[in-house]
């Protein structure tokens, strides 16, 4: 494996971890905030440097130089690939901006130490491909919000039940999958448990209530930071996509697709700001899963792009709403608040970030959503249409909330409610990235596409049993194809697939191929599934 020029990853993770110890000992909230900002900015610099370093290596995967963990365990526990490199930067940026955008009047209630620990766990999750380490970190990651809820004496029943099940299913699922042989009944059960765990962590309906409950009771900022990076989707990519058979991927497409529509509808009827935000987020996060599990290069690239776009835009939207909420308290959406005159900057930022989340032209979400719809519709036409419908409903919900917050009868006030420079800077940075990438999306989408290709290589190549790696009759296999010009093989492949599909169907092979034999019993690479299993 290639080496980075410096132990960037370990640095980015260790800094917040050690920083938590330092910050925990500081009594002044304001000083703790400054320390936290310094530590998070250094960690952000580390992740960005890792991304840059990795890009210059032009490698498929790379790990730290002078890797301490490798020296201790003999294994490359932390590594970076094209898929995870931008996500690390994104997570660091969100953490930094969340703290930057926190009002001074609110910092007394913020646990900066806990936030740094969460950040370190999050960064470690996005830096590892080792299944057991990932399982362990995902388990650990559910603890900080739980501790925060307990400290605030809030009810934990909903959160603990759902994420307790997530932890149990995740551990049991991976234990069964890794400990049993292909084709065994327990192997299949492990796969089911893993899929359910991913659905739980991603908040797919009807397993989503922990997310609404978290936003009801936990601080807005830390809840945003916990959900927007989408650790559930990361678990899906690392644990499910590489090995899951077709039936599970179909489940992972249909359930999120229905969730996306359901959450879009629910966002329209919410009467309170935070609940609206959660459903908006759920609707978008589900779209990411749809793209990931469709498992064709285009759809997967679309899913990865929407992931990045959604995290950025909804984090920006959430931080803007949080700024509004921190001035007025919890906000009802039952009437109009007329806040435009009091906070024009926040109104503009709210509209821009909200529209970016629904893929408005000129923002990062526009081309990403197009790519996703384009990719998904070939394989699952109804799902593609549902994505369009969900996006339309979300657009209506976003503008409705903008109107409820910022329009309506004007009020006079002696208190200045305008956004502070730090808050504006936090959201403006996100807006700059959203619009910058939206106007010039080619490098971003190309990078997501290459990441998708590598992920599909993992799925289509090494993980599949030999009999399923073989191409159908008349179709050259991957090695033969790579030796030739890709375009040269394209017509041959298409013709071969059609012939092969017909031949297999005639022999009743499809009946043997479709049912579930075992977790690792995949059905060939993405191209084969495209032709034979098209809806």
């Amino acid at each position: 494996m290639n080496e980075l020029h410096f132990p960037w990853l370990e640095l980015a993770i260790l800094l917040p971890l050690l920083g938590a110890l330092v910050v925990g000992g500081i009594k002044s909230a304001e000083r703790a905030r400054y320390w936290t900002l310094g530590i998070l900015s250094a960690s952000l610099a580390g992740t960005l440097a890792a991304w840059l370093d990795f890009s210059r290596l032009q490698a498929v995967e790379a790990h730290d130089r002078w890797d301490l963990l490798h020296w201790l365990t003999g294994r490359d526990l932390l590594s970076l690939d094209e898929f995870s490199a931008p996500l690390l930067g994104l997570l660091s940026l969100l953490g930094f901006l969340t703290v930057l955008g926190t009002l001074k009047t609110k910092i007394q209630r913020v646990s900066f130490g806990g936030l740094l620990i969460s950040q370190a766990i999050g960064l470690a999750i996005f830096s590892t491909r080792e299944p057991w380490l990932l399982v362990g970190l995902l388990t650990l990651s559910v603890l900080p919000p739980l501790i925060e809820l307990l400290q605030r004496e809030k009810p934990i029943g909903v959160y603990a039940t759902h994420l307790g099940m997530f932890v149990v299913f995740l551990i049991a699922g991976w234990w069964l999958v890794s400990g049993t042989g292909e084709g065994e009944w327990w192997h299949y059960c492990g796969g089911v448990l893993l899929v359910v765990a991913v659905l739980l962590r991603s908040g797919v309906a009807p397993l989503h209530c922990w997310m609404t409950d978290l936003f009801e009771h936990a601080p807005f900022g830390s809840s945003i930071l916990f959900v927007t990076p989408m650790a559930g989707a990361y678990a899906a990519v690392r644990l499910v996509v590489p090995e899951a058979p077709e039936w599970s991927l179909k489940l992972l497409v249909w359930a999120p697709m229905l969730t996306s529509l359901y959450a879009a509808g629910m966002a329209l009827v919410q009467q309170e700001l935070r609940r609206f935000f959660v459903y908006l987020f759920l609707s978008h996060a589900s779209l990411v899963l749809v793209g990931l599990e469709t498992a064709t290069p285009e759809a997967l690239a679309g899913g990865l792009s929407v992931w990045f776009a959604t995290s950025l835009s909804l984090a920006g939207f959430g931080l803007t709403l949080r700024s509004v909420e921190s001035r007025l308290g919890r906000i009802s959406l039952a009437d109009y608040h007329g806040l435009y005159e009091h906070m024009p900057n926040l109104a503009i930022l709210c509209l821009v970030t909200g529209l970016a989340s629904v893929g408005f032209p000129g923002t990062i979400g526009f081309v990403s959503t197009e790519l996703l719809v384009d990719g998904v519709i070939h394989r699952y036409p109804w799902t593609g249409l549902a994505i369009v419908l969900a996006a339309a409903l979300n657009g209506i919900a976003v503008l409705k909330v903008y109107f409820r917050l910022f329009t309506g009868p004007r009020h006079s006030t002696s208190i200045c409610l305008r956004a502070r420079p730090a808050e504006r800077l936090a959201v403006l940075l996100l807006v700059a990235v959203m619009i910058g990438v939206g106007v010039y999306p080619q490098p971003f989408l190309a990078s997501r596409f290459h990441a998708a290709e590598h992920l599909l290589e993992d799925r289509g190549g090494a993980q599949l049993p030999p009999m399923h790696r073989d191409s159908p009759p008349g179709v050259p296999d991957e090695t033969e194809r790579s030796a030739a010009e890709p375009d040269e093989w394209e017509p041959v492949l298409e013709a071969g697939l059609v012939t092969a599909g017909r031949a297999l169907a005639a022999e009743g092979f499809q009946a043997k191929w479709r049912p579930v034999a075992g977790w690792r019993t995949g059905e060939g690479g993405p191209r084969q599934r495209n032709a034979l299993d098209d809806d």
Partner: protein
Amino acid sequence: MDRNQAFNGLAFLVAGGPALLLAALGLPPLLGWRWSERFAAGLSRLVILVGLTALVGIAVLFWSSGAGEAWVFKASDWVVLEEVHFHFRLELIFDWLSIPFAILSYGLCGLIASFAANYMHREPGYQRFFFLFAMFLLGINTAVLAGSIETLFLGWELVGLSSALLVAFFQERIAPVDNGLRVWSVYRIADAAFLMGAALLHHLTGEGEFARLAGSGGWPNAAISLPEGQALLIGLLMIVAAAGKSALVPFSGWLPRAMEGPTPSSAIFYGALSIHLGTYLLLRLSPLLERVPALAWIVLVLGLLTAVVGSLAGRVQSDVKSALAFASLTQVGLIAIEIGLGLRYLPLLHMIGHACLRTLQLLRAPTLLRDYQLLENALGRHVSNRRNPWPAWLSADQQLRLYRWGLERGYLDAILDRRVVRPFLAIFRWCDQAERKWTDLLSRRPSRESDQVRPTDELLKELR
């Protein structure tokens, strides 16, 4: 400089000007800065003047070349993923359909920019108006000249957002805001139908080229090769999209609501340009209608119904802007009928003529009484005013029913609300209650802090 270079340069001015204007007026507010009124209006007029001149230049070049085929300006492949043949193209098409309509758009926008510079003077949202105006200009220009589905969708989205925000321009009052949301909702549904049609085209034919829908060869002689079944399915979605944009039945309700916005925006958006965007799409897709006669019949029937609703409802309106809105609706219905009948140049001329007349009427609307006085002074008598707008052969009861029907605008909004919106929301409210029960059960106590949030917050009460 050869003709091709000249065309590319002029097309760049036509397309790039509004984009630069939008950036110039939109970015400073993000940073907390504000332009002066004079700068915002002056820059808008300058960009429109340059764009209009460039468009006239293109028209002259196109006419002098005698080209039958459309000229295409390929701005660039915005995104290219060759491996999966994904191209996101920004492409503009110049032919005898788009050039006249684009000149009309630029001309009317220029007129409105000049009018609004004085009309909106010292209005608190002056800069906001010109920013939204710039967004509309970019959107309508992009939609009219679009040579690819992606470009057309981009334009539609910009027109939709700017229209909704302009309807809600007087945002201290709740009625305009509610109406703005209504307009936005209809537009989003129309956009969704359009995108679904485009996505289905991609799925069924394996390619998303605009030419698959609009036909190859110059308008109006273009022809398409899409199988009839596919054309019907995609065509139906496109008709829904066009109906939403042009306020055809059953989406007609948004048009009178849109008159809540400032007069200049009402004039240009709903009287002149926005309202014709749907029928313009139908004209652009006329090869599709020719391919499947059933689609042409549907357009014809929708047009007829719209014209009837517009005509009857317009007779009982008590304010001038609403009366003009329904007059616009009637004309749009007639244009749709013409398109359904297979006519091509007549609807185009009808659109241009109607847009000009309606803009004039709407801009004069605030001074209607004075205009009447001038007219009566010139005539030397009162202008005759028929008291009863209904035919005498209807019984009094029938006239009353018809009056009520017109006053309720054909009950279209009521039907949509009762049959579609309310049941839809009721389902999700029921789900919300079910979720509440589930979380209460798991929490063993009321789980929603948000229930304690009152509609009007304590602080806002204090502020009031």
